[in-house]
């Protein structure tokens, strides 16, 4: 599905990649290629198989089937050599609470075999990069969630990786902390670092990813750039209507107003190219929703279209 002309020459190359745990199929024969220098996303709800895929790329999980090449090597045979060139930001922080902030970076650099004085220098550069210099000698447990996340990202950069894997980099962060993380990731991308991330936030995928795959139930259900996915699977605009809580939305009276109508538990979505015009028409038909909202289409709408469910339940 997500193939490119380079195929096996890609930074990550997967064909029919599968992962099973006993009876559970976590990843079901997926194909994708990640090219050097791009930001590539796995978008999907919890349990879609994103983390299992990331763990296989990170060489800490053995594929049950299919082909996987990372940096041109086999993750099963060449794990340590691949990991030497990867940066990994796991879903939950694995910071060392026995160590201080700066020591976390220093020790991690030492795990990569980086000489002491260089490790020390790089630790300070990275603290500067993630704006934690003034917390260098604090204990990790006293950092906020956003600071811990930034420290984890800094730690993943100590070996100057060619490929950075981020598993839900901003889940659980407040908006301000998220924007700071996005800004740093954007800078890394500009420096030429290839970024692979998973997320269940459509805005994150739209902000960061050049290309992405949408995963659902262990499979890839769509592939493309955020814009092309929206163009392909959604309309230009969306009109959101809220009706009183107990009233059933009058779907029959909305008939023909939009390309597609989606009735969610709390609101009704009308997919249309001109939201304002559709809203006028709704009122002209004598309907009085409690609120109306016209917005741009997002990847959330794409996901809803593809699976009939929201990304975040």
């Amino acid at each position, binding site marked *: 599905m997500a193939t490119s002309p380079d195929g096996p020459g890609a930074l990550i190359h997967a064909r029919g990649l599968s992962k099973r745990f006993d009876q559970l199929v976590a990843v079901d024969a997926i194909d994708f290629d990640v090219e050097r220098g791009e930001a590539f996303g796995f978008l999907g709800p919890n349990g879609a198989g994103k983390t299992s895929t990331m763990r296989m790329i990170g060489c800490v999980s053995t594929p049950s089937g299919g082909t996987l090449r990372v940096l041109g090597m086999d993750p099963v045979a060449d794990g340590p050599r691949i990991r*030497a060139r990867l940066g990994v930001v796991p879903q939950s922080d694995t910071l060392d609470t026995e160590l201080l902030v700066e020591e976390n970076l220093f*020790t991690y650099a030492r795990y990569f*075999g980086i000489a002491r004085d260089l490790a020390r220098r790089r630790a300070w550069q990275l603290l500067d990069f993630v704006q934690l210099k003034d917390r260098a000698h604090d204990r990790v447990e006293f950092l906020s969630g956003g600071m811990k996340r930034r420290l984890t990202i800094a730690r*993943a950069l100590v070996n100057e990786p060619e490929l950075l894997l981020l598993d839900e980099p901003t889940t659980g962060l407040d908006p301000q902390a998220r924007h700071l993380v996005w800004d740093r990731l954007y800078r890394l991308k500009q420096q030429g670092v290839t970024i692979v991330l998973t997320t269940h936030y459509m805005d994150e995928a739209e902000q960061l990813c050049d290309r992405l795959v949408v995963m659902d139930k262990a499979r890839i259900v769509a592939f493309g750039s955020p814009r092309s996915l929206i163009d392909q699977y959604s309309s230009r605009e969306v009109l959101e209507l809220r009706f009183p809580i107990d009233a059933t939305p009058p779907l029959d009276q909305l008939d023909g107003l939009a390309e597609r109508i989606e009735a969610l538990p709390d609101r009704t979505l009308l997919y249309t190219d001109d939201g304002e015009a559709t809203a006028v028409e709704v009122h002209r038909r004598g309907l009085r929703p409690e609120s109306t909202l016209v917005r741009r289409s997002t990847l959330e709408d794409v996901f809803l279209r593809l699976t009939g469910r929201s990304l975040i339940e």
Partner: protein
Amino acid sequence: MTGALRVLEHHLIVYRRTWKGSLFTSFVSPILFLAAMGFGLGSLISRGPLRTVDGLTYVAFIAPGLLAATAMQSAYVETTYPIMVRIQWERTYEGMLATPIRILEVLVGEFGWLVFRLALGSVAFFLVMLLFGTVHSGLAVLAILVAVLTGLAFAAPIFAWTATRRTDLSFALIGRFLITPLFLLGGVFFPIHQLPQLVQGIAWLTPLAHGVALARSLSVGVLTPAAALHLAVLLVYAAVGIGAARITLQRRLVT
């Protein structure tokens, strides 16, 4: 195997901050035990009909046994909660495995660190033994190695077990039903041959009885052929335990 050295280095960085307290404790515990049990209880025994235990003053009898039993207890403490923390609660190992470090290197580094800690504790204990005048042979210095090996004979299988656990429920049980009974019945405070036959048999199946017997014979400088058996049992427990830990940690972290 350079990865193992990096794991060790991590521990040393932490230890740089905590060594004073940790070393202080290593001296306090043997002083208390030898003073209270050795001299307190020992003075009663010396005035009683026996006067000595197996030909030794009571304090000289229990000191080498306590040396080995202390290593067992440190090994138990170090391989339950702290390992659970690194596997699951703080996922320190997961962080290590995102670098070129391999599972075997993690394990070698961890056991290397453990040996270092056991050695420090045992040397401290030995110095206290010298202070209390319970050392009667030059061979006694080897009892330090026996204590480290006894610790490892417990640490390795317990580590292997911990790597299979999702909760800490069993840790208290190990303490209550393995470590404490062995401490009391493993030949530290009185000769094992005083126990009922069945209990004696059980005691000899565990590493502690062998560690205690070997440390004691080195302390008095009388080595019998049984020493080879004691050493073999300790080595087998340590080797099998490390092999098992390699399998269980691999299964746990690489899925």
